[in-house]
């Protein structure tokens, strides 16, 4: 068991490494002192300052809108792509299709951001759209890389689906669209939901790509945080970070719970269906 305990030690040391900075941020968000090195007693004044700062509120609302819209479109595009990769077998151009979906996952953001900006400027010159840069261009950029992440999630989810259910529905005469609506989509729901959440957080988190493709009047939350951080230590960032951690942690726990429940219900339904079938066979 010596090796087992060595591994366990590594695991918990790794978790300490991952969570230490986050815990420090949370603790210092309640520090009354402005200086990081000095503990000035407990206080919630930075939270008050945060909620009175119109810049922070404006950027947060901008970021949330961009994240919600881009996550929704990314789920449609990435969902189709993930389904196609998992189900359509070999089709012409599959290699290129799969490369175009893998590359955005790892492409350095400076390259993606710069190239999209160049595209937007060229498009504006050629077809007059998008006119200028701002929220629309940031949304398009976020859809593009988030769709690739959604495709990964949906692809692995589709691979784990039981194909027999869809085939049974087809055999019973259901049209493809009905099968999609009544069988495939409900079974894919947990995957689509986690894909949406992933796309949402990725959009909420992006600094580099948004900095390239944004325009006047569209300052996102990461851009605001970045400018504050570059100016020096600002304790209200700690408060903001703590709020983000709280929201994300509860979102992840909630979606985990929803998925677990959906899986259990699905398993129950399948068992019930088999029982009915067994009863009919007995007749």
């Amino acid at each position, binding site marked *: 068991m010596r090796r*087992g305990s*060595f*591994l366990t030690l*590594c*695991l918990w040391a790794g978790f300490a*490494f*991952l969570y230490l*900075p*986050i815990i*420090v941020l949370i603790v210092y968000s309640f520090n009354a002192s402005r200086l*990081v*090195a000095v503990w000035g007693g407990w206080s919630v004044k930075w939270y008050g300052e945060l909620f009175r700062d119109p810049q922070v509120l404006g950027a947060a609302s901008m970021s949330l809108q961009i994240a919600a819209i881009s996550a929704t479109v990314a789920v*449609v*595009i*990435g969902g*189709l*792509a993930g389904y*196609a990769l998992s189900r*359509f077998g070999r089709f012409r*151009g599959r290699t290129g*299709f*799969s*490369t*175009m*979906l*893998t590359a*955005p*996952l*790892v*492409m*350095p*953001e*400076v*390259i993606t951001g*710069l*190239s999209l900006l*160049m*595209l937007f*400027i060229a498009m504006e010159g050629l077809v007059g759209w998008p006119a200028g840069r701002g929220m629309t261009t940031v949304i*398009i950029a976020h*859809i*593009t890389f988030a*769709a*690739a992440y959604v*495709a990964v999630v949906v692809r692995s989810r589709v*691979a784990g689906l039981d194909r027999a259910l869809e085939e049974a529905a087809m055999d019973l005469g259901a049209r*493809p*669209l009905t099968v999609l609506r009544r069988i495939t989509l409900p079974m894919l729901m947990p995957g689509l939901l986690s894909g949406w959440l992933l796309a949402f957080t990725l959009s909420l*988190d992006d600094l*580099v790509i948004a*900095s390239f493709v944004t325009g006047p009047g569209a300052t996102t939350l*990461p851009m605001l*945080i*970045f400018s504050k*951080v570059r100016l020096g*230590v600002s304790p209200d*960032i700690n408060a903001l970070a703590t709020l*983000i951690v709280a929201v*994300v942690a509860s979102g*992840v726990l909630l979606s985990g719970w929803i998925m677990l429940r959906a899986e259990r219900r699905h398993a129950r339904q399948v068992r019930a269906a088999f029982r009915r079938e067994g009863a009919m066979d007995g007749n």
Partner: protein
Amino acid sequence: MTDTAADRVADSPALSASRGRLIGILIPTAWLLLFFAIPFLFVIKISLSEAAYSVPPVSDFLIWQDGWPVLQATWANFALILDDPLYLQALLGSLRIAAISTLLTLLIGYPMAYAIARAEPGMRTPLLLLVILPFWTSFLIRVYAWSTLLQDQGMINSALMWLGVIDDPMRMLNTEFAVQLGIVYSYLPFMILPLYATLERLDGSLLEAAADLGARPATTFWRVTLPLSLPGVAAGCLLVFIPAAGEFVIPELLGGPDTLMIGKVMWQEFFNNRDWPVASALATILLLLLIVPILLLDRTQSRAEQG
């Protein structure tokens, strides 16, 4: 009858299934071609243009002379980059820092992934969730947290001085060490997830067989476990190395003025110097360097799916 022939054809399940297939492939393809692949062509175009005092700050690529189009392409930007030791240093520095950080991430991530894969089945999902959770909270803020931890008066220096390990604060912030730490920290989940995926599928009976044949645990690891997990190692390393090589936020917040990385240099050329052609040329060179690793990653992923 309002039914047209086309409607009736569309009603046939087989045909509408193939139409569905077409839509499923066409929409993502069109989107990714327009907003991911084609933009690179414009970067290449700008990298071959001359800088100018105009909006946008680039001279026209194509000019009309006596009714004929004349291409104004120039290699000057690439020549400048290859001549200037600063750019070359930044390019090589990025690759070196990314490579070292990838190796460190592997050394930390492998035992963690292995420990999760060998944990009780019911514990695996919660442990994985613990690995992923930090990734869901703002990357920018987590990197910023390290900058406060690593300061001269930060918690790490204070703790080490309190313990008597050091007498004076160590300079950690604004060094290459801080950049590597930041990369390892930020990309650790990308290493652990593919490693876990291969280690979890590992056939336990192979390990038992090795043990039954008298192999010591260390031998079993080196001769059985590690070779079988190489696809996961490859995927994890590529998932860390490729984006790390073009990282901007981490060297900007944790690195010093002497920590040259190509992503940061490119950002400065673009935003501070407004030199779009040189920034585009740097992006083109970085893209060319990363094409092979990206294709390798795509390969490892399709292979993992097949077997």
